[in-house]
């Protein structure tokens, strides 16, 4: 019996367990998946939790509910990978031998990277919303906050879901309007980029929305420290921005397991072939989702498209066939713009998001890069799709794995 081992039972790992459970010859292959947590978090929900749109129970379910019975779920902490010996060492001393390894260990925030960020004001007036605890603490803060300077801030790229901080900004505008206190709040969006987003055409649309909603933008801001006493953030050029409430996206880093195994770059991301998803160093190791260093967005939609291609490549690898160089960096994201509307963007390594229709060229029904109620309803409906289809590896109808160029206005 050979063993395929998956590290991490988040979005990417769970999808791979479901795909491979169906595709691999189970008389020949044992599949194991390891995660130290017992709960699966619907991470897109972290955006809605602070605004009382979702409740905690909407976004947490047991991991084991989504892992097939014929896949062995190991609920324990990983110490490190020893790739030269095809071994994974567990924190309790156990050693697991693998024939094929899939790394799906994701990424996490690292607020300790910036001086003062995790200081005396952490979760008092300095918050993150990229963790469940952070989003929940922020919800409690917002419920009682009486207004002032709200600063929404990105520390450095790359981050998970690069549109989330903008969505947070738009949703706060709506939230304070609904609470009849918008005039008591100044909203500033602070980014290390030169504009609102990483891609030029979407940036133009999004900056227009910021102006419309009276949100001030501070670009090219590379934070050096958080001054807890005087409540301001300071950048390397000496620029200072005061806050009463700072909602920051700290530096994102890959798992410490990767660092301990000596397999990552300076942010613990695993060097990965961007079209096949094979590790650049070890042929029997594949990497998926936020754990890779590929130049695609770190997002669930990307992991979903990667999973379909990676499944095929694993079958090819086992059969001794050449891998398919097919992954094109495809991402598909709904961007909440507040007031019950959303934008939809669809892009890949080479094509930036543009206007058009989706998924049917010329028909839609969804419109790309334009605000609509239908896009917002689709984003809310996506939670059901995530729990009931996506994690289980069910193909989502009409959505192609590689990006479709028809119906788009390049």
């Amino acid at each position, binding site marked *: 019996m050979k063993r395929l081992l998956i590290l991490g039972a988040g979005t990417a790992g769970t999808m791979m367990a479901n795909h491979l459970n169906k595709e691999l010859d189970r008389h020949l292959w044992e599949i194991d998946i390891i995660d130290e947590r017992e709960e699966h978090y619907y991470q897109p929900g972290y955006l809605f939790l602070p605004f009382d749109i979702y409740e905690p129970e909407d976004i947490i379910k047991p991991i084991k509910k989504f892992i097939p019975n014929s896949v062995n779920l190991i609920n324990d902490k990983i110490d490190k990978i020893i790739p030269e010996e095809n071994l994974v060492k567990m924190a309790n001393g156990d050693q697991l031998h693998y024939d094929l390894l899939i790394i799906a260990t994701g990424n996490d925030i690292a607020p300790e990277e910036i001086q003062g960020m995790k200081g005396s004001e952490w979760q008092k007036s300095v918050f993150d919303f990229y963790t469940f605890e952070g989003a929940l603490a922020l919800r409690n803060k917002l419920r009682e906050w009486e207004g002032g300077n709200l600063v929404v801030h990105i520390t*450095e*790229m*790359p981050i998970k879901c*690069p549109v989330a901080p903008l969505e947070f900004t738009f949703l706060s505008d709506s939230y304070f309007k609904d609470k009849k206190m918008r005039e008591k709040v100044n909203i500033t969006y602070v980014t*290390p*980029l*030169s504009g609102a987003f*990483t891609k030029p055409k979407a940036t133009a649309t999004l900056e227009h929305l910021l102006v419309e909603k009276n949100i001030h933008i501070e670009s*090219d801001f*590379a934070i*050096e420290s958080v001054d807890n006493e005087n409540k301001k953030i300071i950048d*390397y*050029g000496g620029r200072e921005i005061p806050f009463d409430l700072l909602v920051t996206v700290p530096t994102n880093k890959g798992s410490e397991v990767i660092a301990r195994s000596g397999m990552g770059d*300076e*942010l613990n991301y695993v060097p990965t072939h961007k079209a096949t998803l094979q590790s650049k160093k070890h042929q029997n190791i594949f990497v998926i989702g936020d754990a890779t260093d590929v*130049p*695609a*967005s*770190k997002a669930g939609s990307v992991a979903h498209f990667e999973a379909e291609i990676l499944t095929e490549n694993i079958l090819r690898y086992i059969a001794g066939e050449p891998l398919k160089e097919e992954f094109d960096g495809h991402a598909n994201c709904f961007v909440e713009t507040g007031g019950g509307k959303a934008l939809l963007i669809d892009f890949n390594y080479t094509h930036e998001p543009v206007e058009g229709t989706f998924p049917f060229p010329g028909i839609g029904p969804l419109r790309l890069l334009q605000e609509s109620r239908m896009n917002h309803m689709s984003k809310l409906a996506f939670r059901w799709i995530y729990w009931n289809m996506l994690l289980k590896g069910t193909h989502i109808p009409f959505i192609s794995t590689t990006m479709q160029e028809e119906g788009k206005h390049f």
Partner: protein
Amino acid sequence: MEKTIAGKSVAVNEEGYMTDLSQWSPEIANELAKESNLELSPRHFEVLEYLQTQYKNEVPLTIRRVGASGVVDIKEFYALFPAGPLKISSKIAGIPKPASCI
């Protein structure tokens, strides 16, 4: 498109970034620096040389990587090329604008 810099015709893109590093020279760098109101010192050139080497080795550049390079720390990098140091220094070094990613 073509642009005349320091008396030489060089290939640039619409944002003014050079598209052929082999056309670069220290004189061109001095001219490009003036466009950003900078006067280049030997220290600036050490950083430019590092950026060009990284580019030739196809290592994607980020502020974090420059800061960890041992050539210059982030504080000094900002002092040498104020505002957006990576964008400005890349332009003067004759390499493409760093894809600030995704």
